[in-house]
């Protein structure tokens, strides 16, 4: 019976659940990282203009 059920479990389905959890965890860090990128790009643009 157990094996029969296992055959119908889609291991890919966990990918949906897991990425929602992991996405939420990583999302926080990514938020700050994106701000850092924006700040950095401002300075890069400025120095480019000078050049």
């Amino acid at each position: 019976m157990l094996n029969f059920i296992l055959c119908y479990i889609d291991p890919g389905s966990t990918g949906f659940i897991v990425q929602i959890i992991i996405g939420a965890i990583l999302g926080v860090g990514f938020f700050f990282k994106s701000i850092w990128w924006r700040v950095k790009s401002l300075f890069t643009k400025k120095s480019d203009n000078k050049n």
Partner: protein
Amino acid sequence: MGNTKQKVNSSFRDPDAFVFKDDEGVFYRQMNTSYQSDFELFISSGLYQLLSKSEKLISHVETNDVVFNQSTHYKTIKPEQLSFISYAYEWSFDQFKDAAMLTLDVLKDALDKGMILKDATHFNIQFLRGKPIFIDTSSFEKYEDGMPWIAYRQFCENFFGPLLLMKYVDQGMNKMLQIYPDGIPLHIVAKALPLKSKLNISSLLHVHFQSSFKGTTKSVKKYRIQKNRLYALIDNLYSAISKMKVDQSNSTWDDYYTDTILSKEYLTEKTNIVNQFINEIEIKLALDVGTNNGVFAQLLASKNIDVVAIDFDTVCVNNLYNTSKNNKVKNILPLCVDITTPTPAIGWNNDERSEFVHRNKFDLTMALALIHHLCISKNLPIDKVAKLFSSFSKTLIIEFVPKEDEKVQLLLNNREDIFSNYSQQEFETVFSNYFQLLKKVEIKGTGRVLYHFGSK
């Protein structure tokens, strides 16, 4: 174009499109009507233009007059043709790493243009001009706001997990993909990884944490993930992969040329003779067996020849890949293949992915300082070696290493000499059964002889 068309054995799972070839060996991809709306978006969004221009995706021309199946036909495209197909279980660490990063790059570009990758198999990647390239033009679908990435787990099992195994366990661990072509199951990856891999946040989350989930029979279609969190997921995988490194020392052949008394003069003399041989014939595609540090593969490449350079030593292959990349040599494809046990055919009916030795015909095979390893280390009769080479190659440049040679003596040091048939005379007679002897030149002062054989 020829009249007979044949569906490619590896292309039958996707109802939206398939690959076929004509009797001249030219490959086409037929898009079916079910893929029409996604393909229109793929073009109109500018995604195709963006990806093909940056050589992340194979470019194509539309050839709608070439049709395989009229009833489902929407479009036919003729992609740029590849000179040789390779598989992820033949790549070295950095080839694998670049392929994984390319997949994430393509995914990010797709999301930027309102599309997403519907699969993330390693079979979507090939090598062209020294770089990985995405070849499945029908892998893109419209991104609906909030939809999760359906291929996330597949990416982890096809790329991230195998890369972690290559980094933490052994550089040859990607060979496991021969047994698990759909991706190495994450619970196996998690079990094989050392404890310290849990200290890395990416491997902890994407492998260890994910592998503890068993899957469900319930529908998960209603689940949603914000787009910025999807970007966060991709960014985390990308940066984890880009930081991965492996030990580049400890190659079997590291000091082959520097360690030997044969060294410099031997190498110069050998280069001159090989040069003379290859200038006499027209070669488009060559195979360098036991390529070592790739000196002779580079010689062929400098003559505008596409070279597949194989060695069982994964470190050597990785070094050659990186050297070629740094020197912008675009026509060498280094692969981890052991000629004594070449990649087998795998998949459905054992012919979905082809075996190495019959994947292509080569105009030239080069086997330098190799014969003694085959015949003495591996006990292979000379006849079997000649027969194998003649099965996939029109011509051959091969170096005979006599029994008196210091390297052969090294091999015989700790074993009984049971190789009474291993002689230059026997070698010449046997190879002449399969090839036509064109020329032989002795490498001065070494006793070694270079042979040039043509097809019979």
